[in-house]
């Protein structure tokens, strides 16, 4: 008798579960965007004979069905939790939690990517910098794994090899080492980036190494720390999908920065913008607070600067938060992100003449540099 009840229970429970989810899948209104993963979600593909015969419709429909699955975020959480806590895996999709940080394994060292990065930098050198009187520098920002991976025996790229290779292939640059000036607490717990309030000394050190430091303690001490009211759930938080306490984004303001003018060239012509974009901070990626996030070319100018030195900063997203902190040492900083502007187009916007040129890149970008244009 109990066998019969068990069989009936199995049939009723499982078929109701599958039917409920199935109906939910069909009736659920599709969402456009996944906030936690910061990406657009697949929409119902268009159907026609071509898309069916070449299977595009089917493969797009599979993506659509997975992207638009009801309670998708909850299911992702269940998966990550089961991997880490049930099956005791040390990472889930390459993401791990250690010392209070969520981080991502970036391993192994990608030689092809390093070659690509040095090749792109050399192209810029050859086409824009070679026959000018600019001073060229290179600095590399370590990923936060550098500080937490070894302790937890997480695979870590060989930083010495990476640095040596970058230096060896860019002999025209003076290398500025900043690894020892950073620690894990200088990075957000849920994100890949460094915190602006923790890198004042890095900005100062870089300026000093480029002989541009005006030794103004006044500039540093005048910073007022402001904090976004919105909690900051970084990129790793969304990718991992597990509960974690959010970070707080703080940013530094002072009189000098308030008087600075920021100009964006994203549309191809100059357009006034702001150093701290509160509107963007309330959008999908709050780290876009700093210089509006992904910008191909942006300048910050201090009309009241005590110096006429200029800096051209070739950078990734880490550069957005450090550049404002260097405004004491330069009258103008031009930030170039070669992931969004072709290296051949740089000369149309910048006249290279007597500036300091700093290539400041994080190891994440150098080890995955195929987005360089």
């Amino acid at each position, binding site marked *: 008798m*109990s*066998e*019969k*009840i*068990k*069989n*009936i*229970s*199995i*049939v009723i*429970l*499982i*078929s109701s*579960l*599958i*039917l409920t*989810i*199935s109906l939910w*899948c*069909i009736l659920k209104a599709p969402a456009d965007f996944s906030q936690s993963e910061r990406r657009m979600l697949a929409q119902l593909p268009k159907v026609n004979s071509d898309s*069916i*015969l070449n*299977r595009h419709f*089917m493969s797009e*429909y*599979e993506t659509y*069905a*997975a992207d638009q*699955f009801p309670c*998708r975020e909850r*299911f*992702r959480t*269940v*998966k*990550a939790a*089961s991997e880490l806590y049930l*099956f*005791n*895996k*040390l*990472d889930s*999709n390459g993401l791990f939690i250690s010392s209070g940080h969520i981080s991502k394994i970036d*391993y*192994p060292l990608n030689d092809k990517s390093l070659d690509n990065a040095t090749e792109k930098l050399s192209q810029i050198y050859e086409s824009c910098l070679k026959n000018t009187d600019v001073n060229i520098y290179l600095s590399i920002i370590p990923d936060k794994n550098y500080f937490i991976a070894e302790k937890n*025996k*997480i*695979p870590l790229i060989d930083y010495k090899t990476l640095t040596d290779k970058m230096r060896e292939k860019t002999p025209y640059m003076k290398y500025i080492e900043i690894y020892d000036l950073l620690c894990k607490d200088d990075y957000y717990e849920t994100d890949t980036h460094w915190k602006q309030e923790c890198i004042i000394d890095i900005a100062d050190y870089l300026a000093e190494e480029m002989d541009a430091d005006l030794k103004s303690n006044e500039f540093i001490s005048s910073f007022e720390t402001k904090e976004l009211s919105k909690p900051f759930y970084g990129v790793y938080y969304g990718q991992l*999908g597990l509960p974690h306490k959010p970070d707080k984004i703080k940013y530094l303001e002072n009189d000098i920065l308030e008087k600075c003018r920021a100009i964006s060239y994203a549309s191809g012509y100059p357009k006034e913008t702001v150093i701290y974009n509160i509107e963007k901070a309330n959008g999908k990626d709050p780290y876009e607070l700093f210089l509006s996030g992904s910008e191909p070319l942006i300048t910050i100018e201090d009309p009241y600067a005590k110096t006429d030195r200029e800096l051209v900063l070739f950078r990734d997203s880490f550069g957005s938060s450090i550049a404002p902190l260097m405004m004491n040492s330069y009258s103008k900083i031009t930030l170039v992100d070669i992931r969004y502007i072709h290296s051949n187009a740089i000369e149309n916007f910048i006249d290279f003449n007597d500036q300091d040129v700093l290539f400041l890149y994080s190891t994440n970008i150098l080890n995955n540099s195929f987005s360089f244009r």
Partner: protein
Amino acid sequence: MIFSSITFLYYFLPPVILLYFLIPAKFKNIIILISSFIFYAWGEPKYVLLMAIDIILSYISGLLIERFHGKTLAKILLLISICLCLSFLIFFKYSDFMLENLSKAIGVKMPTLNISLPIGISFYTFQIISYEIDVYRKNANAQRNIIDLAAYISLFPQLVAGPIVRYTDIENQLKKRCHKIENIAFGIKLFIIGLSKKVLIANTLGELFGAYSESNQHSIIFSWISAASYALQIYFDFSGYSDMAIGIGKIFGFDFCKNFNYPYISKSITEFWRRWHISLGSWFRDYVYIPLGGNRTGKIKWLRNILIVWLLTGLWHGASWNFVIWGLYFAAFLIIEKLFLVKFLDKHKILSHIYVILTVLISFIIFSSEDIKNTSRQLIEMFGFNKVPIITAEHSYYIRSYFVVLVIAIIGTTPFPKQIMKKISITKAAVIIEPVILALLMLLCTSYIVDGSFNPFLYFRF
């Protein structure tokens, strides 16, 4: 369409099952046929026509063979239909392999055809051949209803990755099936267990094997771990798929044959092949080995028969030399066992287990890579012949990370979990525990699929 996809689980299967149980019995095979064609077309729309041609040819040849029973014409018709059927398989599966090797042999580069392999062609071709031979041998009556025959050949639960269901096994069920609640419950249970084997274990072990393949470093222990993870992955992948197929078959009232029976507990390679991919092994036994004379001929012919069967078994798995070597590798062990080793193995249980595991691990290294260089590199590494370290920090990380899954997988290859389940199932609590565990497993598998992790079925390429 694959079983472990959102599309199959929540868009395809529920309406098909609902429709199937709502309509009268005489239309049930039509629902199976239509849903099987949709299922197949989802993966290979252009090859639906090929399958339809195969079905029509086998329908006509079956009727003709039966009509001319006892006459030479029946034999000729059987040979023609088998040749036609095999010609499709050879053209789609082996033409590039043959062209490449011909190019090498004659020293003239010939262009390859680059044709994509129709999913499941190796499986349904064998089903058709078994149907025709069984009709010829009078083991089965020719099917007069083309819908029923088409439903058998295209039956979506086992269409793309087996088990190879013989027509004789389900001939009666094609006409009349029994839909009992215990069969449906058993089918659901088997399906969810198979899904869990595939999604939770095989896919995770696939990541571990992938980490070995992508690693720039090499070490002795990780070579062994990767060999073990691939052997376990392929077992959980394929046996998981078979469980799902048999489970869906049960829901529809079919009894498909068992395809795996704890192969890794075998004490000889002969026993291993009685427990691994049973439907393929028995197919080759009944339709190739025995017709060639089996072991009832002289020793030389007997050895020849074994070599032919295992050469074909290797080639069935893929058009590449590593599969040929893989098949002949097993043939060599089977011959050695039959000649003298089996007596020794019977007396030494622990040694015999070690022997089987070692032989099978090496076989799957040969199986896993079409590049012979990779295979020999890994074998050399495993036995420490090329001065690689015992373990590296990177490899130690992967082993620690996948340790629990590896242990679960190893236990899962033994009858131990089934024995535990049996003990639980006779308790009163099982009325609640079993359905709840199955529901939780279903949700857990769904969470893995939603997250879009590693998900290919290894046996789809055959």
